[in-house]
């Protein structure tokens, strides 16, 4: 039987505010445990929440970017459940009147086709703290620094039919929130995480199958693997005569499989009700229009500009604009080196290769855009060849420093002094008389190819530093002089 997968995603994006959604404690990542958890975050008696205006503005920005209805009057609700990293005994969230209503985004797939994916809603809520289960025998350690960090939960329609579509959707949302500057997008620090709802049904069937939810996946690669694995698991299960049980599953990256999470007993009965501690958030058209006017360039527009302004191919423009930080990095290099094609090749080639090898994000790249731009400038002005530039880049990557310093200290400067090149050429010609003889006796149209051998020898003798263009010219001149 032919099966079809149905995928819906919930993305939690931590909003990049300085302080928490309902308190004045810092949201900075990586502080000592509980040093950024104030009385409000700890839910001490008598404390009351005060809503952060920046979290509201960021949520509205997102809503406008996905062409959604913005809630003129949105309301916070309490989602009640008990867990030690949630001191209040409820999460302040928005169920009935979210800030962002129905919207949509368009995703582009590998084969170039685009597909519209519905965004059901996006609502504001607070993050919980962290539980550390392994450090203390019989006890759980609680760090509440993260408690109260503003989250935008972005809920998609069940519009995706494959892992590829799901990943394209997540990448697009990631690109949007980072372009908008409302989320740093750092997945390894948990600033951007994804819950995947997956079900399967026989192709052509209207009704959805039973779905499972895999929670808190924090890398694009794992999202893809987790979905592919879960689709297979469900199909195998049904084909073997079993049935899918609605459950929350955890993705195990080491084993590349999902497994059932111990069900929080009856945890699904959240008994939502409007939060009496917070009044409705009321905004008007003027507020919304003011924000609309401050929206930065969004990924689709940037991609179009890349093809237009820099004459990049569709593919290059798509790859370079997909990630906001990558796109910005690329543009800084273009600014420095004044050569978009060269910049594109380096960012998508050498740089991406090393980033992938070291499993690094562009924001953690040991070589920054100014450094790389400076290097490309030296290729442009013939100080070094492209081949030597790769050596310089590797030094830059592992030892730091700017291109000029490295070229100087490693003596990699290209030799452009024609006297020096002539000397090397003469030596090569003198030391390779059999090849010179072949050259002289060859048909004129074969000589072009044969010159490659001498090029190689000269470059080798100059340790790659001779200017290839000049070498070619001088070689040809000298060899052809021997012919007649």
């Amino acid at each position, binding site marked *: 039987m032919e099966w079809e997968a149905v995928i819906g995603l919930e993305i939690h994006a931590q909003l990049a*505010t*300085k*302080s928490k959604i309902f*308190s*004045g*404690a*810092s949201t900075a990542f990586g502080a*000592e*445990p*509980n*040093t*950024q*958890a*104030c*009385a409000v975050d*700890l839910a*001490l008696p008598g404390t009351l929440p*005060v*809503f*952060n*205006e*920046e*979290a*509201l503005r960021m949520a509205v920005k997102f809503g406008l970017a996905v062409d959604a209805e913005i809630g003129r*009057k949105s*309301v916070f609700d309490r989602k*009640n459940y*008990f*867990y*030690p990293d949630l001191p209040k005994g409820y999460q302040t969230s928005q169920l009935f*009147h979210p800030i962002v209503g129905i919207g949509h985004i368009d995703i582009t797939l590998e084969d170039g086709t685009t597909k519209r994916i519905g965004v059901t809603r996006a609502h504001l809520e607070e993050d919980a703290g962290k*539980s*550390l*289960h392994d*450090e*203390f025998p*019989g*006890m*759980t*350690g*609680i*760090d*509440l620094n993260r408690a109260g960090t503003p989250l935008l939960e972005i809920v998609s329609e069940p519009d995706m039919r494959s892992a590829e579509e799901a990943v394209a959707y997540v990448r697009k949302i990631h690109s949007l929130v980072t372009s908008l500057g409302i989320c740093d997008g750092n997945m390894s620090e948990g600033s951007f995480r994804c819950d995947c709802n997956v079900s399967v049904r026989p192709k052509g069937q209207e009704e959805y199958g039973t779905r499972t939810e895999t929670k808190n996946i924090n890398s694009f690669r794992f999202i893809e693997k987790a979905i592919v694995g879960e689709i297979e698991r469900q199909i195998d299960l049904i084909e073997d005569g079993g049935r899918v049980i609605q459950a929350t599953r955890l993705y195990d990256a080491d084993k590349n499989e999902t497994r059932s999470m*111990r069900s929080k007993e*009856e945890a699904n*009965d959240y*008994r939502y009700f*409007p939060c*009496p501690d*917070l*009044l*409705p*958030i*009321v905004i008007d058209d003027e507020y919304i229009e003011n924000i609309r006017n401050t929206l930065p360039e969004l990924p689709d527009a940037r991609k179009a500009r890349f093809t237009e302004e820099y004459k990049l191919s569709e593919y290059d423009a798509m790859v370079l604009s997909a990630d906001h930080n990558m796109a910005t990095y690329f543009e800084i290099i273009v600014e420095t080196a004044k050569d978009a094609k060269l910049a594109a090749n380096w960012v998508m080639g050498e740089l991406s290769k090393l980033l992938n090898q070291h499993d690094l994000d562009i924001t953690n790249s040991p070589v920054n855009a100014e450094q790389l731009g400076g290097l490309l400038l030296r290729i442009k002005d013939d100080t070094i060849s492209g081949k030597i530039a790769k050596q310089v880049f590797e030094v830059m990557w592992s030892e730091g420093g700017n291109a000029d310093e490295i070229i100087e200290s490693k003596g990699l400067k290209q030799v452009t002094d024609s006297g020096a090149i002539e000397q090397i050429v003469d030596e090569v010609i003198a030391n390779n008389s059999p090849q010179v003889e072949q050259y002289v006796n060859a048909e004129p149209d074969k000589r072009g190819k044969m010159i490659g051998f001498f090029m190689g020898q000269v470059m080798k003798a100059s340790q790659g530093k001779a200017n290839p263009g000049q070498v070619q010219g001088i070689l040809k001149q000298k060899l052809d002089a021997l012919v007649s």
Partner: protein
Amino acid sequence: MSLDRTDVDKIAHLARLQIEEQDAPEYAQNLSNILDLVNQMQAVDTTDVLPMAHPLDAAQRLRSDNVTEDNQRELLQSVAPAVENGLFLVPKVIE
């Protein structure tokens, strides 16, 4: 409308309340009375009335996004029953 014993147990469990066996019937009765009162109110025609989100007819005031709270971990943890390495300790919540 009347709640039975199982309803009371479920509500108590969701609220993490421990109730005495002999008190359950009384709770069931009291909670049922509240629901009866709500049922009585259902008779009012509310066709044109928007559900109320808050009893005060006002909008939320907003706070500017500034860090105003210093680290007061030592003070705040002085009332905690168990603390180690800056973490609050609670009985283990998973196996």
